[in-house]
Every structure is written in C-alpha cells, then in structure tokens.
C-alpha cells in the first residue's frame, strides 16, 4: 500500500492505496468524488476526464500513485459547492441552455474537456471545439448540442467583465 497526497479541487487529499489503483478509482472510492465516471477503462471514451494543472487527462490511464502532488480538478470543482451548490459555472449553464447532454454519463468529461479548451482558446471555431471533444465519446447527442453549448459558453465567457477565462471559480 502507498500513501498518496494530492490536491483535488483546491483542497489537499491524502489516502492509502494499492499501487495498481487508477486515479479514477482513487477519486471515486478514496476521495468519494463520484462525478468522474468509468466508461471504457482503456483510455478511449473520455468519460473519466479530469484536469491536471488545467490539462485534460484520462484518469483511467493514470495510476493514483503517479498523481502524487498533482493539482487535479474534477467536475465537483466546477460551479458552486457547499452553500453555493446549485450555482452553475458558465460552461455548465451553457450545456443546460442547449441541452448538450441526455443521460449525463459522459457529461462531466465533456465539460472538463471544454474547460481545458476554453482556458487556452477563448474564441474557438466549431472545428476547434470538435477537435477538443474528439476524445470524448457521447452516445446520446450526436455532439451537435454539445458543440453548440461550448460555442455558447465561449461567447458568454468572452462577454464577462471579470476577465476570468474559465469558470472553475465558484469555490
């Protein structure tokens, strides 16, 4: 068993885990954050996407022990939490606006992929949006309303006054 300490959504988290445990399972079973979903567990579908230092990463392909000391953002770190639970981030709100989801299973990964894109590209083209989510499989939507959501979020983020590029801000 190994001790692992990392930062999740701005808070330090420590846990004891087997070396073979994936970051995905660590997040779900040790940290208790169920918003990161297992889809294929071999790195194709993107349902388990999280951000590490702002970059989209598949948590099923990384071991928890490899994430030692990393700064991780999961879907629980987007939008409001605690007393502010229920407050949507801009990207989340855009997904609701365009109905960029159906069953909701791939959605956390999609939103984090969008987050990663919009944090470095504030005015993406449709092609760039499709490229950014091309590693995330959705079986419900045909992607059309997801692409709409991300373009809408980009537009709204661009219109914000506070110059914060992404919406991982509602602590």
């Amino acid at each position, binding site marked *: 068993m190994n001790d692992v300490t990392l930062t999740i959504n701005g808070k330090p988290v420590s846990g004891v885990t087997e070396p073979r445990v994936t970051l995905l399972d660590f997040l779900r079973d040790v940290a208790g954050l169920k918003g990161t979903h297992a889809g294929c*567990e071999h790195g194709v579908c993107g349902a388990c996407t999280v951000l590490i230092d702002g970059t989209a990463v598949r948590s099923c392909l990384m071991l928890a022990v490899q994430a030692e000391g990393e700064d991780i953002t999961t879907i629980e770190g987007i939008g409001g939490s605690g007393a502010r639970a229920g407050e949507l981030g801009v990207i989340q709100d855009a997904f609701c606006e365009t109905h960029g989801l*159906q069953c909701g299973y791939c959605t956390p990964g999609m939103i984090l992929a969008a987050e990663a894109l919009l944090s470095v590209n504030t005015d993406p083209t449709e092609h760039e949006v499709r490229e950014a989510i091309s590693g995330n499989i959705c079986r419900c939507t045909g992607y059309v309303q997801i692409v709409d959501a991300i373009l809408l979020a980009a537009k709204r983020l661009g219109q914000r006054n506070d110059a914060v590029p992404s919406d991982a801000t509602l602590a």
Partner: protein
Amino acid sequence: MTEQKYKFLSTPRRPVEDRRFVAGRGKFIADLDRPNMLHVAPLASHHAAAVINGIDASAALAMPGVVDVITGAELAAAVQPLMNGLNTPNVRRFPLAVDRVRYAGEWVCAVVAESRALAEDALEKIIVDATPQPFILDAEAALLETSAPVHPEHGSNLLLDRKFVWGPVDDDFDAAAHSLSFSVTWGRNSTVPIETFGVLAEWNGWDQMLDIWASIQMPKYADQIARSLDLPGNAIRVHYDVDVGGSYGVKRGIKHSVLVGYVARKLGCPVRLIEDRLENMRAGDAHGPERKFDITIAFDQDGTVRSMKMRALDNAGAYAGRAPFQLGKPISAIVGPYQINSVAYHALSVTTNKTVQEAVRGFGQAPTNYAIETAMDRVAKYLGMDRLALRQKNLIRKDQFPYLIPSGSYYDSGDYHAVIDKVLAAADYPAMLAERDRLRDAGMMAGIGIAACLEPSGGNSSFEPLLNQSNQTSTWMESCQVNIDALGKLTARIHTTSSGQGHETLVSTVLGEVMQIDPELIRITRPNSLESLPGNSPVGSRMAIMLGGAAARAGEKLKAKIMAIAAHRLGVAIDQLRYEGGDVLAHDGRRFTWDEMVELAHRQYHNLPDGMDPGLASFDIMQVPTGDALPVDDKVQMYPCYSFEFHLLLVSFDPIIGRPDIHSYVIGHDCGTVINPAIVSGMTYGGIAHGIGAALFEEFAYDTNGQLLTQSFLDYLMPSSHEVPAIQIVKHCTPSPHTVFGQKGSGESGYLGAPAAVSAAINDAVSGLGIHFEKLPIRMSAISDAIAAKTS
C-alpha cells in the same frame, strides 16, 4: 402551426434533469455504496462451445477477501430459468452456464469478494475443465439440419419460423411488369452506452425483502426477477431513482440481477455487479439484431411498387430471450411510408454460438427500414428512374390517412410529401446535386443518400401475441400519480428509471400545461416498484404518448375536482366557471383562488361538496390508444402513432482511401406535437449518430474460432465528434389524432433512417463502378477494396 396554442408545451425550455448531470451529481449505479457491500466478478468462457466437466474453485476460495464462488449448477438448483419470449422451454437459460457453454464470453461462474479487484484476482485461480464442442456462427448454416443445435434439448437451432401473407401477393406479382431480387445484411451492432450495466441487491431477512438498484430499461423487470428467484412480487423492491447512463434499449440486465439477487439472499449482504467494458461487450447481452434480408419486389414500368416478399433471418445468439420479437415490431410498418398493396414476410430467428441478442433502439425497425429503402433504390436504378421521384410516387398521400397497411395497422397521420419538399428546399437540393458533380469532377467519389421511413411509437407490445399465440398481451399501460400538498405545490410520481429521455421534464411540462402552472414549480419523484402503479418502462418510443398521456389525464382529473370544489363554493354550475392559471373564475367575475381551494381541500371538509373525498390527489393508468385487440388472421393494430423522417445527405471520399466524409446532412422530422424541442432534437441528432455508426463503423465481429474480435473501444469503433457532421433538422408537425396533445414518439428518431440513408449515399458514390455494398457496416476498408478490385 399547432405549437402556438400552448403555454409551456413545444416552447424552448431547459430540461430539468440537466442541472444535476452538468454538476456530476447524477446518481448512477456505480455511485451507490452500501455498508459491507460485496462485489461480483464473472468468469468468462474462452470457448465458443464446450461441455463443462468440472470447476475447481478451491484456490480462489482460499484467497483472502474471497467470500464465495457461485457455479451454474448451484444457481440452476436454486432459481428458475430466465424468461423466453417464445414457447421454447428447452432453450433454458440461467445467469451462469449450466453443464455447457454456448458462446465465448459466457459466464461460467462468479466470484464474490470484498472488492471487485480481489474478485478479479480470484478469477485467475479458477480452473475450468471443459471439452470444446463444434460451434456455429452463421445464421444460414445454423438452419441446416446437419448443423449441431446450440441447445441439443431443443432439437434444432430454429427459434422462430413464421410465414405471413398479407394481401394478394401472388396476384400482385403476376400483374406487375417487373420484379427484382436482392439480399442485404445488417451487421451485428449495438448502441453501446458509455455506462456499462450494473446492479446492486440487498436482502433483508427480517423484512423478507430484496432491494434492488440497477441501471435498467426493462419492462416488467421486478416481475421477472421475482419469478426467477421464486419470491413473491412484493418481496422485490426496485428503486427507480437511479440515473441510467445511456441505454437505447439494451440495459435489460435480467441475468445480472437474478445472479446478484441470489447471492445477496444467500449471503445476507449487499452485493454489487458492475460490468467492466469487456464483460459488457462480450457478455452484456446487449448485441443487437444481426439480420439477413432476401427481398423480391414487384413493380410497374411507371415505378408503382405493387408487392414485396421479404425473408428476414435473424441471428439471435446463444439463447432465446426477447430477441425474436425484434422481427415482430417491423410488421407494424412493413411497407414503410409507401403504398405497397401486399407483403409476404418470412421471419426466422436462429440460435448460434454468439453473444445473446437483446433489444436495441428501434427493436428491429432500423434494419427493416434499411432493407425497404435499399429496395426503393434498386427499383429506381432498374427503371432508370430518379430515386426521389420513385419515392414521391409511392408515398402514402396526406389525404389517405388513416391508412391501413396490409399487415393490419392503421397509420394515424402524416404529410410525407410536405416534409420532403421542406427538406429539399432547406438543403437546396439542386445545389447539393451540383456539389456532388463538382466533387466527382475533382476526382472524388461522391454520392447523395436518401431515405424515408417511419417510427412506430407507443405500442401495445402486440408483436408478443402475434408471434406467440399463447401470449395474450393486450395492454402495455403507463401510469402517473399527482398530489397537491397542503401548501399548494404539485408533486408527480413516475414509475420507471430514465436513461436520458427527460421524463421529469416531460411530466412537469405536460402537467404544467394542463394545470397552467410553471413546470419549474412542479416536483417529479420516482418511488420504488412497490410504491408504483403499473408501467412498462421507456421502450418503443412510448413515453411522450403514454407517460405524457397519463400525466395529462391525471392532471385533468385534479382539475375536474378543483372545478367541482369551486362550483360548490361559489354556488354556480361548473359550466359557468373558467379555470385560469390555477384560479377559478365565475361568469360574474368572482375568483376562487388556488390558495383557497387548497385550504378547503386539505382542511375544510365541511366546505367540500357532499361526498367528496378530502385532499387533492389523482392518478391515471392509461391504456395504449388504439391497442384494444389481440391479433386476428395474423393482423393486428400494433402502434397508435407513426412519426415520419426523411434523410438527405451528401458524402464524398477519396477512391483510394475510402474514408467517407459527410458534407451535409438534413433530416425532415414529423413527430406530431413536440413536448420539449431540445429533447426531441437531441434524440434525433443522437439517433443519426447511432445510424452513422451502424452504417460505417460498428460491428461485433467474430473470428472463425467464435471469438469476438471487437471487444474494446479500440476495435469497436463509434462515431466521434469528427464523424458526426453538423446536422440540420427540418421540423414539421402533423398531430396524431390518438394522443392528448397530438404528440407521437421520437425516442428512436434519426436511427431508424440514417443507416439506410448513409448506405444509399455510399452506394450512389460507387454506382458508376457497378458496385453494390450489400452489408452494413460499410467500412472504409470495404470501400477502398471494392474500388480497387473494379479499377485495377
């Protein structure tokens, strides 16, 4: 447009479910933990067919953390076989293989351990002594008398062999100027949700109760588990407040549920089984139809299609289950949207040593639509006639509804010609043709795909009595309960799980419309199965019609009670009152407010009309519209509503590489009155994506040893955001006369026509080379190989 008359219906409104999902706060089966929960991992067969001589689990049982190993023999002694749709009692099936395995991947035994990882470790210690047996993979071969039966006790591989003749087929063929024959094959694929199937069961011996949480989309799920486990129906409590991470028909999970239900009861602990991806792909019982069509079609020189003979041979895989019924649903729309006077239909389903077939989106309708639309293209090509003109000539006209098709169903309503005209205008069809020609001139292969088809919706499951005469099913009801609490707020209860269809939005919107109350103020809950009224889960594109219908009717009952209270209170006749936004207005201007009404109903019995019960609650158990009879003479009204879709797309590809690029995709869609526009559009886009996958990429392919080749997402390819183009939906609304608002079904939209349309586009692109692709999926390797063979 009819939409204008509604306040909430058909207006752009956010689906209420979305908020929890964008926050990662859905409640999926893998998110549920119970104290002291045990985990199950099944051991898969390596053989396509084998006799099991013995299982040595001693080393596994000796491992720390391993609690039990369950074998098929143990299970078969304790539970009843899983239900078959047809009368095939000797095709017996248990959750684990008993004595012999019948497909590679079949569960041989199951380890129960303190964690899933420990259970998987223990699988490697189990020694199965098995003797390989001959096996069969091809459906035509399975039909041969010389082929060994997958179930020797059954005597053959034949599960279903039914011949129907509807109308004067021979006369129509004699009278027709031409006929042609062809074969096409729908490859074995599925909708493959990103969430695998999972189930958690917990037995409470003091209450004699089995609690079940599962990612299901399964009619009569609790009943089937109770029957298999020999438990009373009221000893199974299925919790419907589980979010299902995609299903599209496949999340049936009976074998998984019976297995964990048995283990939970045996060990007295909560037990969970979550498929991993490999288990899901090879033994999740989620493969869809694999179907070969042999078609002969009779037609005149002017393009009039008179009659069709269709033989459909389905490869059901190793067990019977519900799969053969997927040959039944298409009977409800066996002529598609066309005036075809007569049909001969030969439906065959056989067992093979492949994974078991289960229900997939459209329940067999998409393959049949692919066959019918291929026939229309072949006829047009034979006659040298324009494909579009041929379809327009044969389509049922607006003035012909209700239209009785040869197999006994009336189509309710439609205006197919108008939808097509709208699509041609929206797509700028002449420009699309010009673009195709320009691409061809530039050295590309380019083609236009056209497909028209129907989506039967809201049915009575009438294919059950049609294909199995001992089955007397003539209702497929759905229910809704509504309560107004003492503070005046509405709560409605629905009695099913949902897998992305937006049922909470459906019910709150419908109730809001009926009660004239903002849907956002209406709460929707999902009680467990013991607290539920009867229902049949979201299958067959039925919920807008049936759950929406039940919710509306329950709301109308409440409104009637409110009007009676108001009439009594104001001392006027009901016909002199008007309901307005929750208040009731009298003709003389007096207003009986919602708050007063709530106060009276909840507290002032003495002010209620004589004999009226207190409180404000109602429920409705709704029968399927038009679904009132069993089949007679092999004919039956199967579905009340028929939605229409028309697909038009332009595809091109490099002749050497053969990778199709969809340039533009326009679909015309008429599903009657739309409840929530974003939900219906989303279903349609997603259905088209599934259809593109079925047409170009997705197949459960087996090697000659009976091993599944495509058992991960690296091999089983699904469309990404690069393969699904921007799609334009052209909307049209022909209300159904049979439903409360004129709504029809839309849950299978897009998928029912897209495979045919994409196939047509590819075939149009290669038509100059004399190539016909006769099997889906049409992979890029098949395209480039076929072109190379013709041009080298």
